């Protein structure tokens, strides 16, 4: 088990280094640079470039960046003067994570329940109902879902605040809008893996032993069927926790999502790199945890690696 974990961690570090390197050089290939606006004169732009150290050789900038990164320092944003990327992430991540966790709890718990119900009632009306919810969840994009919820629950019926993120009541609409897609996919995966498990030998054995349906479902079926759900949770957790551009924009939540998009448009190199590395780190970490949990939950994974 220890060897398995160490191997995973080393792979994660190499992945991150490759990510940093590729993105560092790729952003420099984008047209323009951070200091382009209608009013900027050449002289002033040159002053700004040297202020941010762009007049040094690119390879030297790269090693400086790597050295700073090892100290956890993402550098100064080039668009938002006098603010470090670390400060901006520190300000925005708690909001994105808070919203993400709420959405995840909602999505996973409801998704699992729906999936189990659908599998248990395969082909019946309840199954059909669950399919409809799943189709709605996967086919309606979150910006429409967000706008619909905002219009009816916020403006028309006045049940929840329209926007901003100042307390529990504010979290419900955005978390619901964000949860829908994950909820739908979790429920579908849970349903099919439940059905797959049903035909396994150990379920037949359990049934022939005369166990009650309740015990079979909870002790044997669900425990085994949940593995595929764990697999999709890794990337989903990373994606949902580090901010979603659309939902945060619609509900005016001061999260990280905006910076993924705007930093690229603004050629804010430090911000692009900071966001990518932070997200990459999170993704790698979540996948690592899933891998390890897989090893914990399923002995075959560990043995197979030996």
């Amino acid at each position, binding site marked *: 088990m220890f060897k398995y974990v160490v191997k995973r961690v080393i792979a994660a570090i190499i992945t991150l280094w490759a990510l940093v390197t590729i993105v560092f050089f790729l952003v420099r290939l984008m047209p323009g640079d951070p200091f382009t606006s209608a009013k900027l004169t050449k002289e002033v732009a040159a002053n700004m470039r040297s202020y*941010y150290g762009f007049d040094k050789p690119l390879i030297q900038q790269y090693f400086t960046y790597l050295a700073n990164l090892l100290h956890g320092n993402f550098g100064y944003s080039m668009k938002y003067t006098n603010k470090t990327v670390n400060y901006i992430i520190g300000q925005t991540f708690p909001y994105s994570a808070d919203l993400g966790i709420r959405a995840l709890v909602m999505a996973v718990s409801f998704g699992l329940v729906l999936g189990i119900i659908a599998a248990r009632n395969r082909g019946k009306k309840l199954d059909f109902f669950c399919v409809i919810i799943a189709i709605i969840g996967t086919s309606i994009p979150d910006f429409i879902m967000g706008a619909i919820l905002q219009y009816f629950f916020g403006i028309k019926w006045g049940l929840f605040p329209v926007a901003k993120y*100042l307390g529990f009541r504010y979290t419900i609409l955005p978390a619901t809008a964000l949860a829908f897609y994950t909820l739908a996919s979790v429920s579908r995966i849970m349903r099919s893996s439940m059905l797959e498990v049903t035909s396994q030998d150990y379920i037949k054995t359990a049934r022939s032993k005369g166990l009650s349906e309740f015990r079979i479902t909870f002790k044997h079926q669900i425990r085994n069927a949940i593995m595929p759900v764990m697999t999709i949770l890794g990337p989903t957790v990373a994606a949902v926790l580090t901010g979603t551009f659309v939902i945060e924009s619609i509900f*005016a939540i001061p999260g990280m999502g905006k910076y993924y998009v705007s930093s690229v448009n603004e050629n804010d190199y430090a911000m692009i790199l900071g966001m990518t590395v932070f997200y990459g780190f999170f993704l790698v970490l979540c996948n690592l945890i899933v891998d390890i949990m897989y090893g914990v939950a399923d002995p075959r994974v560990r043995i197979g690696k030996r």
Partner: protein
Amino acid sequence: MKKRVLAAFLSMAMVAGLATGCGTPGGGKSDGDSADGKVFRYAVNTLPTTLDPTKGQSIGDNEIQHAVTEGLTRNTAGDVKPGIAESWDESEDGLTYTFHLRKDAKWSDGEPITAADFEYSWKRLVNPETASPYAFIGDCLKNGQAIEQGKMDVEELGVKAVDDTTLEVTLEHPTSYFLSLIGSSGQFAPLRQDIVEKYGTDFAATSEKNVYSGPFVMTSSEDNVWTFAKNDNYWDKDSINLDKCELNYVENTDTQLSMYEAGDLDYVQVPTAYVSDYKDKADVFANGNVDFCYINSKSDNPVLGNKNFRLALNYALNRNDYNKLANADTYTAFNGLVFPGLQAKGTTYGEAYDLNSYSYPLDGDQDKATEYLNAAMQELGIANASDITVEVVTTDADSSKRIVETLQEQWQNALGINVKIRQVTYADIYGKVFPEHDYEIGYGGWGSDYDDPYSYLELFKSDSSYNYSQYENPEVDQLLIASQDEPDTDKRMDELNQAEQDILADGAFVPLQARNVYYMLDDDTTGINFYYCSLNIDWVYADVNAK
């Protein structure tokens, strides 16, 4: 094994439960409408880039500075009143100003505001080491441009604190709009050297890392909400009605509108797409931005160097139709270069000079267009109009695309030429395409930082770094240079207007529209001012009736 899985899930559930159970990161903050007294709440859809007055580079940056800093003068929608300076003397040649500062002016921490605070701030602005994106605004000060370009020491700048309350300013040229400029541009605000040096690169990173000279202090800058409270140390605090102001960053303009409808905002700009729905309820102001197409007169495409062809482009365009199709009539069709709302000769520029008497008709003129086109083809030796192809470059914004597509259709129909469209990013168009003259015709625009036609006309001065058209007309250059040293302000204005007439007669560019902003304001709110250079909304003197 079973236990371990169970433990893993339990701990996950606990983490989730904890997070959902306890408050949100911003929990416990007020919504702004509680017992805070008179509060004005509004929203912007672009983030301020900085809270450092020297480094401000957007309208949004400057709107904040207008509330939390006080310059030597205070410019409220064009009306210039004494600020930190109680009075001033201007030399006869218009080159030297001596400002007398009030003795009771204080920073928000109680320290006196002195002439040295201005000298320090202005030198910091033009110092290349500061790398302020708006350093050029200091060009009007003696040696400002040379210092900014590293050709002269910063100590040579034309500003000197004679004593605590006397500031002597020397200008590069007589600048009739100088008092107006320093009253509306945050870059000319005083700065406290001890505070700037104490925080270094963190200066003004957040609201508490600065002290304030203006009518308001910034009380918070976190979580995309900027809050302001009345500054008790402000010299003119009796003129200030609001207790608080709350500025929200709401990127999505639909959401802004919803928040206004729900009563969460007192002021909202109506998104262009909704203007027709709200035309009855909304008011409008012009923000000083004019849009046009640059024409690269020295491009590889020879037709663009031909004056008759450029005039054909201008006469072929029916700007009224264009404005309906491209902008749903929300802007004003425009056939000039200088924003007509600027102050000139005791009235507005638009009132002082009759644009329609010397520019292309707003409805276009098909006959003249054909005439100019034929003349151009004869000069260039082109037999068929269909042999002519021009390329228009634009950014990938939806509104810009629609504008350029409308132009394409009108030009193709009216002149029978081919028009191609090239899309690039915003960073590309101002980073490379325009500065490196890598285009034929390009959609762009301009808004002024000071109340003077020169700002717009400078785009066509041959040695200007903004001369993206590579336009060269010695007469225009001469008029612009003469205007800089002309002490008679009326005569100077006539020179500038003549330059505009010459530029239009050359067909140097294709004017399109002047921008309007539609907005809604809560009935209980009064005293909001709107301006057309360096800032748009000015809520310093706003008042809110108690409900």
